[in-house]
């Protein structure tokens, strides 16, 4: 277990995460208004979202399906009866004066998530619950010198709050949790996982303790908008708490804000200033009842999820767990790989995808969906290696050209005349030329300087522009030099 070293000994971090995931749905949780990101302010607002007098919420079936789907994806219990509560507080971007949420009776109960850690290790983290709730609008403070403007486009959009158990012990595990959760949500199609646009937001609960002690007092760090920042915020916060305790102070339970500018957290409000949300069941909504049949229908439509896919890649393709983890983190990557691997050497396919292809994608900042080399094209390239048309070295050149031009491997080979020369007659001629030109070296070689063999290979390859089949070159050289 990874400990933090304080001045007075070792400390253990205890981390739990609350993730707000915006549900993929055409309409809002309780109104028919649209949910497009980036629309003009206040154009995606119904009378319900603006909390006009007499307006009433009606649950959106798709939102319920998505929450159940997410719960099943996290191997969680689905509560067939759940209750919507009102969480009361005043804020201008909260038109109703309350958020409709779920408090004691959420739609999804306990589940689990498996972390994929460095070196192919895994670790289980408990999911406490998932509940459905409305998002708030947005306050725009920069539109007017003294007034605040309100954009209600986001008001009423469906969120799932996914709460973990305090099972994580390092910032890296927290990062792995978010990566994995995002991967599962994307596999399920329930959240696009885009943290920059705010469709995935994370609050981190952090405390520290001596190994084996009871849980310490926790602080909640609000709304950190990238996985890197989450790790940074947790690390800073844990060190702050350790320093505080070691100096004889105590940690106050409070809500803190992360400042990405300097990587620190600062107090937002103390426990005493905490809102009394006066939760009570929303009388405008009946308890949400779903049938087991509804749940089973969704279960039957679940895609293969990352853990299962990873396991299959290991057993069916003989890949290592780390490679399998890399390939299955995104569904699109896994699909791409399987297309490449189909009917070909799966390990070779894996090497090309995780090596050359990932290299090109990383360099150009593209996702797998925008790959300049399609799965079929990469497969074509691998075929040319398999049938001896291309050497590994030539194949890399061809791949580069394919990534630049988007052309098929065979076309590049044809155009650039990159085809490997395996004709032993032609190679013999080149070998003879080299041996003639370097008669002195031949003499040295024959005198026992074996290392010069590589030099001759290199010269032949150079002379043929790298196109000579290295196997054939070796063979011919051995024959000629040995003779």
């Amino acid at each position, binding site marked *: 277990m990874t400990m933090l070293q304080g001045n007075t000994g070792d400390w253990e971090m205890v981390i739990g995460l609350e993730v707000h995931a915006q549900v993929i749905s055409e309409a809002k949780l309780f109104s028919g208004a649209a949910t497009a990101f980036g629309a003009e302010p206040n154009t995606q607002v119904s009378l319900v979202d603006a909390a006009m*007098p*007499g307006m*009433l919420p009606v649950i959106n079936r798709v939102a319920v399906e998505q929450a159940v789907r997410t719960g099943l994806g996290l191997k969680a219990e689905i509560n067939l009866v759940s209750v919507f509560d009102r969480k*009361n507080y*005043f804020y201008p971007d909260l038109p109703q004066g309350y958020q409709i949420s779920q408090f004691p009776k959420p739609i999804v109960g306990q589940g689990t998530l498996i972390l994929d850690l460095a070196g192919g290790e895994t670790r289980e983290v408990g999911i406490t619950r998932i509940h459905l709730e409305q998002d708030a609008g947005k306050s725009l403070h920069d539109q007017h010198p003294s007034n605040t403007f309100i954009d209600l486009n986001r008001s009423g959009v469906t969120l799932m709050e996914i709460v973990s158990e305090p099972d994580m012990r390092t910032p890296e595990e927290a990062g792995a949790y978010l990566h994995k959760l995002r991967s599962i949500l994307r596999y399920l199609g329930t959240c696009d996982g885009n943290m920059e646009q705010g469709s995935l937001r994370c609050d981190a609960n952090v405390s520290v303790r001596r190994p084996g002690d009871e849980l310490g007092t926790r602080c909640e760090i609000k709304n950190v908008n990238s996985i890197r920042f989450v790790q940074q915020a947790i690390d800073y916060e844990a060190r702050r708490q350790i320093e505080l305790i070691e100096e004889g102070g105590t940690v106050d339970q409070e809500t803190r804000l992360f400042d990405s500018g300097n990587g620190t957290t600062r107090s937002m409000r103390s426990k005493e200033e905490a809102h009394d949300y*006066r939760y*009570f069941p929303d009388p*405008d909504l*009946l308890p949400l009842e779903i049938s087991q049949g509804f749940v089973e229908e969704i279960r039957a439509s679940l895609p293969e999820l990352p853990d299962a896919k990873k396991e299959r890649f290991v057993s069916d393709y003989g890949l290592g767990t780390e490679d399998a983890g890399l390939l299955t983190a995104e569904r699109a990557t896994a699909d791409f790989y399987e297309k490449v691997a189909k009917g070909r050497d799966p390990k070779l396919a894996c090497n090309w995808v995780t090596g050359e292809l990932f290299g090109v994608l990383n360099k150009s900042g593209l996702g797998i969906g925008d790959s300049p080399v399609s799965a079929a094209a990469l497969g074509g390239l691998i075929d040319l290696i398999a049938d001896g048309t291309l050497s590994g070295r030539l194949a890399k050149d061809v791949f580069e050209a394919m990534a630049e031009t988007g052309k098929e491997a065979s076309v590049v080979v044809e155009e650039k005349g990159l085809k490997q020369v395996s004709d032993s007659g032609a190679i013999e001629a080149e070998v003879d030329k080299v041996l003639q030109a370097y008669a002195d070296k031949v003499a040295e070689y024959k005198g026992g300087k074996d290392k010069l063999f590589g030099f001759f290979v290199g010269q032949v390859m150079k002379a043929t522009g790298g196109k000579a089949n290295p196997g054939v070159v070796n063979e011919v050289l051995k024959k000629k030099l040995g003779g």
Partner: protein
Amino acid sequence: MAQARDGLAKGDFTSVELTQAHIAALEASRELNAFVTETPEQALEAAKASDARRVSSNSGGGEAGSMEGLPIAIKDLFCTEGVLTTASSHILDGFTPQYESTVTANLWRAGAVMLGKTNLDEFAMGSATVTSYYGPTVNPWRRSGDDKKLVPGGSSGGSAAVVAARAALGATGTDTGGSIRQPASFCGIVGIKPTYGRCSRWGIVAFASSLDQAGPMTRTVRDGAIMLGAMAGHDARDSTSADREVPDFEAALEKGVKGLKVGIPEEYQMKGMSPELLALWDQGKAWLTAAGAEMVPVSLPHTKYALPTYYIVAPAEASSNLARYDGVRYGLREEGETLQEMYENTRGEGFGAEVTRRVLIGTYVLSAGYYDAYYLKAQKLRTLISRDFREAFDKVDVLLTPTAPSPAFAIGEKMDDPIAMYLNDVFTVPASLAGLPAASIPAGLSGDGLPLGLQLIARPFDEETMFRAARAVEDAAAFDAEPTLMAGDGS
């Protein structure tokens, strides 16, 4: 209303003529302060359109609606498209909805004509229509030999007053703890609170969502049946609206009460009840017995908890429902240096004393540390109160009780004593908590000449039995006393 309907059908008069007569009547009754907004021009236009529809339907082009051409008033708690909607609160200053409540939309579809929006206790919180920002409404009735102005009851006091004064053929009300039935009793008219879920709440300014129900206020039981039929129906936009067929209430009226078992809840016989009220109740039993029903004593043991339960549940919901009136998007805004100050100024200025009191009570009972002792306990009691009724209805078909503990009182009375004011609802609140249909029928006069009502409570969604019993009481009571102020002739 039924008479006017038949007159219009026969062509004795047109909707325009009928509407003109009612506009004149509402002008003649302005001293009642029953309307917040009069809409005579829209009324005449709607009447004209109705007459045109009738002409076309007479020549085979489409059917006339069930309330075709009938002028009615709308409690100013219903949102009406393009017409100021105030809930009688300062905080909704200038609020003109861009939408029409489901209930009023249903009424217009049935052909009804709107005369205007009637006064109420602010946000329907009150039992006397005295907490309105637009001033109190006056009851058209006076005590005999006394010209003191009396309250019309509340919160649907404006609607009750205009119907009693013959300034409208009917009016919509809303009932949360008795706000239709108690003013109906005070003004000598019929008031019907249907089963919770029978009428859509969409577009009605919310007071207490788990209790609010719209219903008709009319001069006769038949009119109530006609009007409820037009108002009711499932609405997908209200999750608490019942997906049930609306029965033909009018057809149920003349089925009689022969063989019906009428429950007399012993707990409604409260200490200090006036002898005249007890006598009226006895009279009611005698009428129904004579009509062939059987009186059965029943017990509703948790009745005494109904009022305290109501005064926890309703303010709790109201405190949350009224949070949206914050000065940010519509209605009144009183600026402040900070956001907090703007909230305080707006809500401090916008809400009257009674609304403020209930928002405070509601906030308190939902607070951490008090929730279990108040709100949760109240919910449990509410369940027990509902169970009392369920068990009683195992034995009987309908319950007969008084509607209110007293006749109308004078404006100014009980004003400084909220508890005395809250006691007005002692007989009406239990049925509200249980979501049951209930009606108040004018049954007699008090010693000083004021109307008194009897209440009939039925099983959930069994308005038909309620109507049958109500019609029998109405028939036997033959209530034909008239208020002091008669603005129209009732045609």
